[in-house]
């Protein structure tokens, strides 16, 4: 009966498989990315008539759905097995949230580093890998990964962001069993590792390795088009 309720039929016509039940619905004032607020307000503003609801002008692509897919990865270990002085962060974005009918037009990874005052390095070497398959503990970690990006980042007082276009990769993640996520490797450039962390590599478990490094926030901006809600060839009002 639920399947045929008026609400479900109505939400279905809006392209939603049902009433969303977000886990954090009880947390008032949850974070909404400021970029999405800006887009929403622009679409509601005085120039709404001129803007095309099926084009995301901020990214210059076709689309009527913009998702900030949250990172569900975790801190893998205090130290990277392939680089003794590095910190590893697993990144995982669940792309199954896109409905099969939707056409993915952009998937952009945005990594933001929030530098902590008076503590930690001022510059990082950042390496991003695609995890191709799971590797056994002790196997060559390089075998299961592919380098996507390697660059240095100078940390400022304001948050510093790095953007990477992962559209082709994210399209592949929509197929079940193809998404092993990403691996982010951070190497402090202007401080000795020992100075940073309250323990030496010999310890079995790090106490709080990340506390010495900047806060890393990652999200995947996925822009997609639902062709049922965007009829092409729509003549603009003259």
């Amino acid at each position, binding site marked *: 009966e639920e399947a045929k309720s008026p609400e479900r039929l109505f939400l279905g016509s809006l392209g939603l498989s049902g009433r969303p039940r977000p886990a954090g619905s009880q947390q008032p004032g*949850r974070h909404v990315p400021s970029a999405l607020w800006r887009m929403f307000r622009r679409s509601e503003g005085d120039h709404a008539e001129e803007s095309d609801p099926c084009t995301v002008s901020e990214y210059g692509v076709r689309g009527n759905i913009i998702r900030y897919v949250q990172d569900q990865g975790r801190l893998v270990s205090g130290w990277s097995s392939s680089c003794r002085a590095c910190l590893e962060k697993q990144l995982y974005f669940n792309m199954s949230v896109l409905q099969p009918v939707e056409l993915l037009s952009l998937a952009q990874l945005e990594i933001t580093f929030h530098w902590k005052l008076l503590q930690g390095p001022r510059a990082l070497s950042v390496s991003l890998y695609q995890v191709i398959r799971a590797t056994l503990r002790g196997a060559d970690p390089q075998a299961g990964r592919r380098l996507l990006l390697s660059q240095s980042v100078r940390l400022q007082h304001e948050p510093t962001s790095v953007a990477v276009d992962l559209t082709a990769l994210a399209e592949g993640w929509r197929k079940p069993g193809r998404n092993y996520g990403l691996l982010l490797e951070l190497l402090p450039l202007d401080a000795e590792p020992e100075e940073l962390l309250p323990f030496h590599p010999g310890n079995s478990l790090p106490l709080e390795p990340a506390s010495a490094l900047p806060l890393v926030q990652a999200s995947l901006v996925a822009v997609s088009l639902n062709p049922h809600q965007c009829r092409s060839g729509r003549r603009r009002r003259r």
Partner: protein
Amino acid sequence: SAVHLPVTPSNVCKARRLYIDFKDVGWQDWIIAPQGYMANYCHGECPFPLSESLNGTNHAILQTLVHSLDPHGTPQPCCVPIHLSPISMLYYDNNDNVVLRHYQDMVVDECGCR
């Protein structure tokens, strides 16, 4: 030759305002913005003669004429939306991702006889 009384204005085809507050339908825990939706709809008569304010096409004007001559055989033109606006919704999905979605042609701005 019968005297033909025009329909009272309130029955004429026009947009009827209807606002749905998302709180009333229990959607406030997943929709971030807006607070509600203008679910306006078109309702009313398309009488002969069709006045210009009813935004009728030539075909609709002829149909009202034929209806006036043969009310049981030919219906009046329909009162339908002729101008719609898009809306945007900002909401949390089942994975707590924040989603912005734009919908074309969702709010009825203007109605007409077609």
